[in-house]
Every structure is written in C-alpha cells, then in structure tokens.
C-alpha cells in the first residue's frame, strides 16, 4: 500500500507543474512523507552512463505520469531519472504493464548495445588462450571443468552475492539447454543481487561508512553508490563523479568519498592513488619511498592537484555557533548535527595552497615553497601521451583536470588497476599481487593476460558488468578450483579459481536467503533523504534558517526509527532501529537479527555483529575485509543467534524441504539450499538415518550450515 502511495507522489510533481498554483501546493503537502522515494540527490545525467538516453513518459497503474530517463532494471526494481536530475528507484509492480514491457525492451536494447555473444565468446577465448599458453610453458594444465553444481554455486555467489535457493538450484541443474551457463550468467548480472554484491565489494574498496569524522552521517553516499550501481554507471564515470564532486554531503552523495579524508587531505590523496591506480605512495608522503621510485616531491606534486580544494567550510561552523549564541533554546544535539553536515563541503578556491612541508629535506625543492602540480608517470614515454596535457594554471580546475587524467583510458594504470581487482574478485587472486601495488606490471603472473584484461576493460568502456560477463564465460573461470597456492614458492598461473572462504557478506547473505528466501533481495535500505533536512540555504546563516533546519531535522528524525540509524548510534548497531529506512519490502527480524542483506544493513555492521566477526572490514582503510577465521565466529554459528536462525522452524530452507513427500526429497532439498548440490548416496543414508534417530530437519539445516563445504566456494 505504502508503495502505491509513494509512487503516486512521484507523478504528482509532473502533474503539479501544469496545475494551478494553489492546487499544486495542496498536492505537494499531501505527498510530503513519500519523498523517501528519491534515492539519490540531483546529479548530472551524463554520470549515469553514456549510452543513448532513453526518455519516456512513464505511467503508473493509476494513470499518473512521470517524464524520466530509463537507467536500469535489476530484478524487480527499476531506476529512473527525471528531467530535474532526481533518481527514482521502485518496484516495477507499480508501473503499467505496457511500461514494464517497455523497461524490459530498454534492457534488451542496452544489452544489444553491450558486447554481443560473439564478442563475449571471443574475449573469453582470448583469456583461455593466454592462460593456457602460460600454463603450457610451465608444464601445467587447466583444472578439469567445474561440474554444473560447482559452477552454479560459484556464479550465484560471485554475481549475486548469495547461494541459490533449492528451487533455483534444482531448475538450473535440471535444464538440458546447451547455453544454460551463459543464460544464468546474464540473468544474475541483471538481478538485484548483482547490485548488492557490487555494493559490498565497492564499500570495502571505497571505505563506505555510515559515519565519518565526528559521527557525520554519510548515508547519502551509500544511496548515491547504490543508485549508480543499479543504473550500471561505468567505473570511470563513477570515479570521476566522486573525485570532482562539489557541495555538501546532504546535497550530493558523491562527495562522500573525498570528504572521508577532509581532515587529512594528504592521506586522502595517498588513499585514492592506491584505490584507483594501485600505486603505493603512502611512504612518499613523508619521505622518498625507500623501496620504490616515488619521491616525496612526486607525492606533493600529485597532492597539489587538490591544493585548491577544501573539504571543510570552517566559516559556516562559526556562523552557526554565532547564531546559536543568540538563542540558547535551540537543541544542542540537533544543532551540532546540522553544523557538522553543513561544514563538510567540497569546494575549490582559486588558489593552490599546498607548500612543501617544513621538514622537507631533499634538494629538489625548498621547504615552505608552493608546490607546482605535476602528474606522475610509470615509464618515460608516458608523459608525452595527450592525457598528460593538463591545465595546471587554473587552480579551481585542478581537481577536474586530475580526474580527467585519472579516469582516462590513456592513464597508464587506471584500467589495469580495476581489471586486476575485478579478476581477483572472480578468481581469488589478482594477476598482479598485491592488488594495491601494481606499479611494476612485469610482476604480473602473466603480463599478456593483464594486458588483455586491460584491453577488455577499455573496450567495455569500464562497464564492470560487461567485464565480469567476459570473465564468467571463460573456461578458465569455469574450471574446477585449486587449493590456495603458496605464493611464496611460485606465482599462481590460474589453473582455475582458487578455493575461498565466502566473504563475510556472502556467508551472511546466504544464511539470509536460507532463512527468508528470495524475499530478502527486495528489501532495500535508503536512509539519505532525511539528511537533506539538515542543509542550510546558501548565503548568510540566519537564526531563522537555523531554526527551520532544526525543525526539519527533528521532524525527519522523530519516531526513533531513523534517529537510531543516524549519527553514531548506527555505529553502535541497533539494526532494528533502521526499520523506517527500508523501501521495497520490509525486513523480517528474528532473534534480534535484522534479516536484510549485508548491503542493506549499517555500513559496516557493529563490531559484535556476525558480519564483522566473519571479517567485514571496519572501512577505516581500503581493502580492510578479511576472511580469517576465529573461534567466536564458530561460536556464533553454532550457538549464537545465527545458529538459532538456521535451526528455526520458520526457516525458508526448512519449509521448502518440508514440502517434499519423501525423506530423500527433504534431505535433497536442504542439500540444494545450503550446498547447491544433491547429496551422495552415503550422505543421503546418514542424513535420513539421523532423521529417524531424534534429529529434525531443523537440526539437519544446522549441520549443513556448519559444514566447511558451506563456508567455502569451490
């Protein structure tokens, strides 16, 4: 019901424009609460992708209209962007049947614009050829092809972030279609789970946190990233939008990436070099790199591209403080939040302020002198590339110039860095390791393979979905898995993917789907809109405006629900307090666990949450997730709330199994739910016997969830 109301309001804006003023006002008032549908703040249309925009007047079931551009269709969710730049994200069931069909045709069109099956096949075959030649040269061979069961589980985890349900598994395994693997790959890459798992992966890389600095909430950054991912925004556009983002977090979620380091801008530069280029300049920040070629001067010259950028607007902070002094009745907590939210703001001045540090000790520059921006290069010829021709004369443009160089296909590392990371996502290891230090391309286990992947990345115009499509269709990816290699002895040549423990998010999301089924794929957390209430209008801070902002803020955060999901408290992890932040379906809660997927929970979860125990990163640094083991993990899986969740009679996997008419059917169903395969005769016998010997299906579910096989992807 709420969704219908919500959607209705999306259309009101359009009809209101034509309607007489008075009526429009009335309408606007009526629809106020549903503004929640706006998942991302205004952004340039171009950022959502370069492919020909499809504009369309969309009609809902009630006949109301919205003029918007089609951005993407993932599972049951459609993403649209209206003429004024707002992004809308909702379930397709709200649309008329004709428009649902139209949206599907848009997807088909987008797919036709993407790589054709022939191109995919050829690019995948090139991967296989390059891997095979290295293997042959080293007297090794590719592993045997993965079985359908192995492939099924792997592709579900990699492309949609969770194991398949019993039904999904049975359907795939029963199919005799010769192209069923390719079909499944395409289906999963366009599911809502794809967006969720990409969000988890990027959240670890981009340090997506609910709060940064002194508890400043960054929900708009999360909402922005989710909207971009569901719209299929290519990596270069995504990165460029983050680096060049202007304004406050409340107005522009994309600022979240740069604002994370607003108080430590030099660290910020060092971090983004590692994240986007695989270049490790952290040492050069304080002294010439002892082990690599980077000098401190190199670092400062790069950092100077951000020397005109300011992440903190201290003036507004003192203006607010001054205004508050005039009226002591204003609630302190709300004012503090408003102050923080408005203080963090990305802006460029017309002066590059970075100077060499006081303790600068090298002869190539003088301490205290202003730094002239200059780009680094990895080899001599690179500096003559057209992309190195940047304008360093206009300080306010420096950041844009840097972003243009950074995200260009001509950048010597940008495409390689992301290609290597995407490869690692699929195989468990990068072609160059470690992935955060790829300065020396000759260190790749196969430089030719690395070059090919870089080429594919550029050919796909940085569309990560397309690149993953190529990789997943390769025989190399579809080979059975190798044991974790000892890189101390030799480089790994990719006989197949490596056996990996599921990531924290994959374990959690898999347990969620066994608990509540595919329902969880439609539970989406969006919390950023309330933060808009904190934004002060441009210009002088007046007490009246401040009061308005306080009222808006108090109202938006009233009822406890969202407040609990706001600053600081979210870090404490009262996930249940997030209830009001969900759109799509509402999450179910059992044993004090919010049964939503990891991407739709606090970022990151609280330290004692299952996700963190299993290695979800704290996101203070990039790549902070781990898959190390520990006893508390096992304790929670066996005895804790998650153990109870697994062996609960309401479990979707158990209920599925109960539908079977025979014991064999029951056991098989649970095996499919947890391990994506049928039991062997021996396993079937043992499990069946236990069911007549005092154990119930809920116990069998517990047992299967506690097998090592459940925790690992083969």
């Amino acid at each position, binding site marked *: 019901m709420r969704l219908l109301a919500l959607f209705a309001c999306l259309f009101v804006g359009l009809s209101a424009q034509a309607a007489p003023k008075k009526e429009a006002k009335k309408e606007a008032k009526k629809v106020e609460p549903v503004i929640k549908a706006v998942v991302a703040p205004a952004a340039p249309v171009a950022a959502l992708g370069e492919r020909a925009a499809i504009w369309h007047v969309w009609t809902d079931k009630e006949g109301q209209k919205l003029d918007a551009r089609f951005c993407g269709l993932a599972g049951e969710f459609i993403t649209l962007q209206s003429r004024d730049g707002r992004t809308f994200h909702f379930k397709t069931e709200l649309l008329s049947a004709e428009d649902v069909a139209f949206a599907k045709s848009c997807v088909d069109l987008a797919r036709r614009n993407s790589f054709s099956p022939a191109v995919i096949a050829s690019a995948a075959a090139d991967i296989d050829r390059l891997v095979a030649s290295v293997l042959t040269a080293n007297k090794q061979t590719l592993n045997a092809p993965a079985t359908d069961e192995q492939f099924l589980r792997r592709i579900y985890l990699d492309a949609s972030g969770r194991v398949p349900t019993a039904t999904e598994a049975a359907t795939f395994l029963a199919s005799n279609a010769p192209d069923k693997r390719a079909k499944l790959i395409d289906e999963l890459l366009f599911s809502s789970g794809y967006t969720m798992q990409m969000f988890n992966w990027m959240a670890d890389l981009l340090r997506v946190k609910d709060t940064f600095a002194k508890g400043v909430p960054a929900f708009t950054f999360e909402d922005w990233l989710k909207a971009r991912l569901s719209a299929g925004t290519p990596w270069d556009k995504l990165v460029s939008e983050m680096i060049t983002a202007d304004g406050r977090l409340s107005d522009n979620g994309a600022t979240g990436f740069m604002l994370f380091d607003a108080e*430590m801008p030099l*660290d*910020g530069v*060092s*971090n983004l070099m*590692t994240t986007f280029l695989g270049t*490790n300049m*952290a040492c050069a*920040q304080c002294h010439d790199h002892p*082990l690599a070629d980077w000098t401190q001067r190199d670092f400062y010259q790069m950092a100077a591209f951000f020397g005109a950028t300011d992440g903190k607007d201290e003036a507004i902070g003192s203006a607010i403080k001054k205004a508050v002094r005039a009226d002591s009745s204003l609630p302190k907590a709300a004012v503090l939040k408003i102050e923080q939210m408005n203080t963090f703001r990305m802006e460029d001045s017309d002066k590059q302020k970075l100077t060499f540090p006081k303790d600068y000790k090298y002869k190539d520059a003088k301490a205290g002198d202003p730094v002239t921006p200059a780009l680094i290069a990895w080899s001599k010829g690179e500096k003559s590339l057209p992309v190195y021709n940047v304008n360093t004369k206009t300080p306010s443009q420096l950041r844009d110039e840097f972003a243009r160089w950074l995200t260009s296909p001509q950048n010597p590392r940008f495409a390689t860095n992301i290609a290597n990371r995407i490869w690692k996502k699929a195989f*468990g290891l990068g072609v160059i*390791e*470690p992935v*955060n*230090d790829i300065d*020396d391309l000759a*260190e790749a286990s196969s430089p030719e393979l690395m070059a090919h992947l870089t080429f594919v990345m550029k050919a796909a115009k940085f569309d990560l979905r397309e690149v993953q499509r190529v990789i997943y269709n390769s025989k190399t990816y579809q080979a059975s898995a190798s*044991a*974790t290699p*000892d*890189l*101390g002895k030799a480089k790994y040549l990719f006989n197949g993917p490596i*056996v*990996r*423990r599921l990531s924290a998010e994959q374990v959690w999301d898999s347990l969620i789907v066994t608990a509540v089924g595919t329902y969880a794929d439609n539970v989406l957390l969006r919390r950023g809109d309330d933060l808009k209430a904190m934004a002060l209008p441009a210009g002088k801070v007046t007490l009246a405006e401040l009061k308005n902002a306080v009222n808006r803020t108090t109202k938006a955060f009233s009822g406890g629900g969202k407040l609990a999901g706001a600053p600081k408290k979210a870090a404490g992890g009262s996930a249940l307090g997030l209830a009001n932040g969900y759109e799509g379906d509402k999450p179910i809660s059992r044993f004090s666990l919010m049964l939503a997927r990891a991407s739709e929970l606090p970022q990151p979860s609280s*330290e*004692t949450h299952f996700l963190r125990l299993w*290695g979800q990163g*704290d996101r*203070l*640094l990039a790549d902070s997730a*781990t*898959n*190390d*083991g*520990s*006893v*508390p993990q*096992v*304790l*929670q899986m*066996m*005895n*804790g709330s998650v*153990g*109870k969740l697994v062996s609960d009679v309401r479990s979707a996997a158990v209920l599925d199994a109960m539908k079977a008419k025979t014991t064999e059917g029951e056991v098989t169903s649970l095996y499919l739910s947890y391990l994506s395969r049928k039991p062997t005769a021996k*396993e079937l016998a043992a*499990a069946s016997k*236990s069911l007549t*010997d*005092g*154990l119930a299906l809920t*116990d069998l579910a*517990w*047992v299967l969830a*506690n*097998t*090592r*096989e459940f925790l690992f992807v*083969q």
Partner: protein
Amino acid sequence: MSILHSANLLRNPEDRRSFIEKCAKVSFGLSVLPFFTRIAEAAEVPGAVKAPNAGLPGFGKAKRVIFLQLNGGMSHIDTFDPKTGASKGPGSIVSAKGDMQLTSYLPETAKISDRITVIRSMTAKVGVHASAAYLMRTGFEQRGTVQHPTLGAWAQHFLGTSHKTLPSSVTVNRSSNHGNGWFPAAYSPLPILNPTDGLMDTKSPVSEAVVAKRTGLLAELDAGFGGKASDESVKSYNEFYESTFQLMKSTDLKAFDLASESAETRARYGKSKFGQGCLLARRLVENGVRFVEVAIGGWDMHATLDDRMEEVGGDFDRVYATLIQDLESKGLLESTLVVVASEFGRKPTFEGGGRGHHPLVFSTVLAGGGVKRGFVFGASDEKGYAPKENGVSPGSLHATIAHAAGLPVQTDIITPAGRPMQVGNKAAPQTGVFA
C-alpha cells in the same frame, strides 16, 4: 616463517616482492593465524628477532599487561601531580606512601602508592579526544593510510600466542577497533563489551543429547569436503571447529566468568563497569591472557570537576587500589604491569568549574612488572603546564611497556604494505622507571 621481516632484508626489489607475496598469502586466509590455536603453530619464530634492549634493566619482567584507559583526559593536577598556588584544584594535597604527594581524591591509592611509579612528564601535542586516545593506545599518531596495532598485537607477533585456548589479547568495556593494526585479523583483541556477560555464545541453546547427535552427523557429512581438504584455509577452519568444541568443554572458559569469584571479592571491586572490568582483567591475566585493556569514560571534566572527581575519580581510586592489592596478594604483581593511561591531562587554569584539554604535560602511572616502587619519574613545571624534566612521549611510554614485556624496541619490522615500523614508533624505553 615470519611474515614480517627485518627491514634490511628488503632493500633489493626481489626480496621485497617475495616478502610482499608472503604477506599477501596471509590475507587470503592461507595462514589463518588463529588466536586460539596451538602456540607452536601461531608463534612466528619467537626470539628470532634479536632485541637490542635485551640487556637493559627491566627487560621481559612483565609477563602480562593490564592497560587501564581513563577516557576523557584525567586531570594530572587533581590526581597524581598535585600543585599549589593558582593551579591547585578543589582537592587538598596529601602525603602518600612511598614518599609522594597525591590529591585527597585518591585516599585508597595513597595507601598503595609505595607500589607504584608515577610518570609526571608525559607530553604530547594532540588535544582532540579520539586522536589523542589513539596515540595513547598505539604509540602512533593517527593517520588515514595505516592502522597501527596495540601492544597486545605487537606482543603476539614477537612472542606468539599466550595460551593454548584463550585469546592473547582482550579489550574490556570497549571494542577492539582494529587493534591488530597491520597484523593478521586473528591478532585482534577479543572484545568483551560487558564484563558481567563474559564471552558470548559458549553454550548451545539445545540439549546436550541433541548437540551430540548434531556434531556426530556433522562429522559424517563433512567428511567429504572438510575431511579430505588439502586446502590450508579449509584445514584451518577444521581446527577452529575443533578448538571451539574443546573450548566449550574446557574449564578455561571460567576465565571469563565473574560469577566464579567470591561475593566478597566482587564487592571489593565494586559494581561499577570499571570495577567488574578490572576484576575480569585480573581473572584473564591470571589464566593466561597476556594483554588486557580496560576502558572507562567520564574523565572529560570541563565542568563540576570537584563532583566528578568524587564520583568518577572515587570509583577509580577504590578499584585501582583493589586491583593492585589483589594482584599482589596473588603473587602476580611483580610479573604483571598495570598501566593507568589517559589521552591527555587538563589545563592548570579553571574555566567554569572544570579544566580544558591539556596534552603538553600529563601523568601516567605504572605498577608491577618490574617497575620501581614508590617512585616519581620526571616532573612537570610549577604550574603543571609543561614538562620540567624527562619528557616522555606516548611512543616512549609504549616502548617502555614493550621493553618490560620483553619485545625488541627500536627494531624495524616491515608491514604488509612494505613500510618499516617499530613498536613505540622509534622512541627509546624509559629504563629509569625499572627497579
């Protein structure tokens, strides 16, 4: 093989690469270094690094460390470094045992001050709570590009795990906050957020009979994948499950159980979170945990300092004196270093009934673990504004604790990111505090 090599091994690029590969393999979960596994396996060649400080006084005397974090910034002038004149606070100055002066807010501590060393010349530059607390907890200034480990993780790196089933480091009343730093996640302290709850989820919610049947079936059904695994990370998980089964049956779990203490002892420590936290810390170190952090807030006394000192300071005073006496009566004090650390001191001047943040000089207190008894190290100036002699940086404090714990200080290790680092951030230990 240690993942962290001495820096001079790494000057040529080939060594560097192979080193980085070794580091990398850890992060893939290959050598899942368990904090709960056998010492022989987890210990990364203990003693392989030669400690240049091994011959100096106090080296290795502290087998365990209890690190008390007084969050908010303890006023040095109103506690361990009393002043007369304009700086004097509301409390009076009293002569305490061990020939030192304390304020009247610490009557119980005054009775045991012949067992402690007060460092009155701590000095730092950071006056913001979170960053200063980070500095005091790690010995390093906070940075956006690296997370520094706590002393517990450093100790686990150099000395191996401290017990066969119990964790080597525990944090009480606080989260672990990336306490492993660049070391493997398994070096991260185990957080106990509520000392009276102890370790969670150690008991199965179902009957023992069902547990037995479930685990029997689990062994049978996992024989295929788990049983024949050649993969190191799968094998590690087999061990974690095995360790967990053992732990659940083990009496070691009692280390976390405050109910095992007599009512009299529990009462002596008091009901406060700090009191119960310190009691838990004592139980843990007594049972083989090497490094325990206990946090307590309430020290940010900008206003009503007098009342707050009575309340927060009073609780600290009773609990701290109890802890020192309890350790001594159990014969553990000489081998257990107890550190009282706060992120900064407070200004000599009063503003609105309290004092502002003051990192330039402040006090830290050491007891046990081979430090001198009834001793004052260093001094602040007359006002309590700046160090007068023997300034001690947070890094140097860390080097001092590390030295007491038998770790090599001023010795490079190389982090997985290829950066040379030292416990205590290159600072020298203050050997003058040791007996």
